[in-house]
């Protein structure tokens, strides 16, 4: 046989192998074909090697392709205007924290700027309060937004008052409902209401309870607010402990913020 013919035949076999391996890797082999393939893997270590090698190549190529798309999207994002955080359209005129997100950020920034001027003159007893004021934003994520106001339902009344920022009204309502049927969601909001009226210790109590309920979803938030509660109450050690819990959790939304506050306490 001429050398060229031999090479061609080898190439064909090799090519067929590759096609077969591809099919296997994508799960496109029929049951009996797959069995035969797997037997061959067992019997022929060289074949096994080429399968592994092929898998590496294919994964690497897919990884490269994926990065292309990811880059395309990131580049596109960079050309687009800033996202607007809009008002929700609501049936009743409920003054919810629609702009509180940005308002609180702006207020927080302003306060950080102002308080950093005072920090030079104040003793460390003031720092926790400044930090608290700079970083605290009341939570408003999952309040019921029903179209009809049921003012005979204490829970709804409490949530309504909270959404309007009437914390002094909301607090006793929440307390009453909790004394009968405590839920973590209610405790979470009560905690926030306490924080908004400056009652750090009471807030801490509520958030501690929320954190013990592993089924309640807003764990990261509760952890963060707990730290802020201790800060408000002037208990720097407990604040630090809880902030450290957050910084240890790289997946937490508050990871960065907690780090900032920790740096400023130390």
């Amino acid at each position, binding site marked *: 046989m001429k050398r060229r013919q031999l090479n061609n035949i080898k190439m064909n076999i090799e090519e067929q192998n590759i096609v077969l391996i591809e099919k296997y890797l994508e799960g496109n082999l029929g049951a009996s074909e797959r069995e035969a393939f797997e037997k061959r893997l067992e019997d022929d270590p060289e074949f096994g090697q080429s399968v592994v090698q092929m898998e*590496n*190549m294919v*994964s*690497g190529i897919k990884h490269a*392709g994926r*990065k292309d798309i990811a880059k395309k999207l990131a580049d*596109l994002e960079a050309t687009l205007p800033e*996202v607007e955080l809009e008002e929700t359209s609501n049936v009743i005129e409920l003054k919810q924290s629609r702009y509180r997100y940005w308002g609180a950020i702006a207020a927080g920034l302003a306060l950080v700027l102002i308080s950093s001027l005072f920090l030079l003159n104040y003793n460390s007893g003031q720092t926790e309060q400044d930090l608290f004021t700079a970083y605290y934003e009341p939570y408003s994520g999952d309040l019921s937004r029903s179209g009809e106001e049921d003012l005979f339902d204490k829970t709804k009344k409490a949530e309504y008052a909270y959404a309007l920022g009437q914390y002094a009204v909301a607090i006793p309502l929440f307390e009453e409902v909790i004394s009968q049927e405590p839920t973590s969601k209610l405790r979470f909001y009560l905690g926030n209401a306490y924080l908004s009226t400056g009652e750090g210790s009471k807030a801490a109590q509520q958030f501690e309870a929320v954190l013990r309920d592993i089924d309640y979803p807003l764990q990261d938030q509760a952890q963060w607010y707990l730290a802020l509660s201790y800060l408000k109450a002037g208990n720097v050690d407990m604040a630090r402990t809880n902030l450290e819990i957050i910084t240890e959790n790289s997946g937490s*939304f508050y990871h960065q913020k907690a780090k900032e506050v920790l740096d400023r306490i130390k």
Partner: protein
Amino acid sequence: QLRVKLLDEQAVIQKIRSGDNEVLSQIYEDHRQEFIAWIIKNYACTVDQAKDVYQNTILIFYENIISGKLSQFSSSIKTYLFAVGKNKIMEHKKKSYRFSSQDEIPELSQDETSLERFSEHETELEMVEKCLHLLGDPCKTLLKLYYYQKLSMPAITERLEYKNADTTKNLKYKCIQRLKKIYEAETTKQH
């Protein structure tokens, strides 16, 4: 307003399957504002975190179409994106949740809301990627079109303007062999 609204939703799937990535950019722009605003409002994260989730979501959407996991829409593109996003943001908190369905967003399985994971380490994948760059075009593009975008041989032939599908097949084989060679060379260099 929504350019893609005029496009049949199935047409989106056809386009992506045939290698049109521009429609993906359109979809990205069309749903971006609503999605990001919704994530921020409901899950209390920063704008940058929300953007990350969104880009991840679009990537998953794209790969699901390519892989065939998503072959038709039972609802709308928007609902699908929100369902993926909801799942992603929950994952972010590393806990498994029972959602109360206060919204009409359907739940998708773990499989439908994750990118395919590779068994190789990041460093190995990066190495192969580096070799791919060293290999250069036409191989680099051809291999990505074939293995990542899963385009058919005829489609690739048309795209890269080759003579026929056999030519393409042949080239693909050669490219894979060359890639392997470069990889061997690069990895032995390091020892």
